């Protein structure tokens, strides 16, 4: 038995610092009065405060909004968005379709698992650099224990700069937001990785997303939670359009588009 933790200590009254609602009276949000302390708050500011318990500056709110805006792609072919569209064509509910699409976004190849790994590496690499280690050595040691570092090298269009990055950098410049330590580190890692590889391993937008979030003071775990709604805006259009078409008429697949390569026809009792 875990001798450090006694479940009896957690029995009965639910103790919390997250918050609570008192119907007809008030709501507490992370130790603040929601309807007073956040009366004029932007939703993004509230969302980030819920995760970090830190209030953002107006400029930081704009920058974080921009991260979400520039990665909102209503392309129903994308695997996560496709789930929303398929929910629409199958006439499922909006909440079910879009919540499933968000869950699917936690993907290894393109989604939040890759983004989280990138943020985790940025944190560790910076800590090691701060101790005096050369970035090239940090990368070599990482590559000694895993085949690749996720967050550099986009799975599609790998040889072109991610189209969202120059837009984001331009916006940051316009807002007077300098590139922070983590963002500069991300681009430095890109240079080192590309020099070690036979092809360019360009920084992905997910990595920029996480680096900017780390630069406003979030941890990797906090940045991951902040990331979760980032694809959301692109999903309702995919769901809606599928609902507007006849039922079953989105991503139509005739039987001939199923290519079978398993065992030949056989009898169960044979």
């Amino acid at each position, binding site marked *: 038995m875990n001798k450090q933790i006694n479940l009896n200590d957690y029995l009965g*009254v639910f103790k919390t610092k997250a918050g609570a609602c008192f119907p007809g009276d008030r709501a507490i949000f992370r130790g603040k009065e929601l309807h007073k302390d956040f009366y004029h708050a932007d939703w993004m500011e509230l969302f980030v405060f819920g995760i970090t318990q830190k209030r953002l500056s107006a400029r930081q709110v704009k920058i974080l909004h921009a991260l979400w805006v520039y990665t909102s792609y209503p392309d129903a072919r994308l695997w996560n968005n496709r789930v929303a569209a398929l929910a629409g064509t199958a006439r499922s509910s909006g909440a079910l379709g879009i919540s499933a699409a968000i869950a699917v976004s936690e993907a290894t190849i393109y989604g939040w698992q890759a983004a989280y790994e990138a943020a985790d590496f940025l944190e560790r690499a910076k800590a090691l650099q701060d101790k005096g280690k050369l970035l090239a050595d940090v990368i070599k040691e990482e590559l000694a224990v895993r085949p690749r570092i996720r967050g550099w090298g986009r799975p599609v269009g790998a040889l072109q700069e991610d189209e969202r990055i120059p837009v984001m950098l331009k916006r940051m410049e316009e807002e007077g937001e300098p590139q922070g330590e983590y963002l500069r580190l991300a681009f430095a890692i890109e240079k080192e990785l590309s020099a070690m590889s036979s092809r360019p391993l360009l920084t992905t937008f997910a990595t920029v997303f996480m680096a900017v979030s780390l630069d406003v003071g979030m941890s990797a775990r906090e940045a991951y939670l902040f990331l979760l709604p980032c694809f959301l805006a692109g999903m309702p259009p995919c769901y809606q359009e599928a609902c507007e078409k006849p039922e079953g008429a989105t991503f139509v697949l005739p039987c001939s588009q199923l290519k079978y390569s398993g065992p030949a026809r056989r009898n169960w009792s044979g």
Partner: protein
Amino acid sequence: MSNQASESTQDCIHSEIWDEDAQEGNPFRADRCYCRGYDVFGDLLPNASYIAYLFLLFRREKPTPQQASIMEALMIALANPGPRDPSVHAAMCAGVGGSPAAAALVAALSVGAGSYGGAREIRLALERWAACGKDIEAWRPTVLPPAKPERSVVWPDIEHAPGFDPYASVSSTMVNQLLHRLASLQPGGCAEWLLESRQALEAAAGLPLSICGVVAAGFTDLGFSPAEGEMLALLFRLPGAAAHAIEQVDVGFRKFPFFAIDVENDPLKPRKT
């Protein structure tokens, strides 16, 4: 890149599991479908059991009677962790509030996916089976209290050795019954080895075996990979979640726990001096 749709092999679904014959004159409706070569409605429906069909979906061949019995034992063991379990509790939250049926099962799957009694714990235990097999010395370091990992992932860090119960001193009767049943179904298998080695493993872990640990041995005896075992563990837990969610619709929210609350940082709460 063109935005014009194109007919190509990329637009096909490739599968070793499923094949279909289209209806004559209607390419969009299957007239017959085949699972791993067997006619599902013409042959499996009259001749196969549901468990055999389920096994066939995941494996290339139909199960032996022994494998079907192990599968059935695992399905019974996982079918309902009971209404106090977080995943069933989650499904009941959907039921009691009038959420869609699918939301109840989504809730059960999401909560039942984790490393405390959930499918991830079973997957992690299966990975240990794959790495250690029946080598007790290989097992020993894997059951120690987990250290903070050097690299973190989206999943929260594990807090106890997968397959062991962090809140018990001895295994429950249920754990023992499942272990004995699985051990009896496959002499010489992983469950039997676990039955013989459990004392040493529990001593190394400082914790007793849990249902997850025994289930992982059963999935290993069936030859399932960690990914397959994780998926089946999610699937098998749904019947109980569904039944309890529906039950709470009729029981009603007034009889459903809501818990008294203490907001420790309530700004209106008198501060301790």
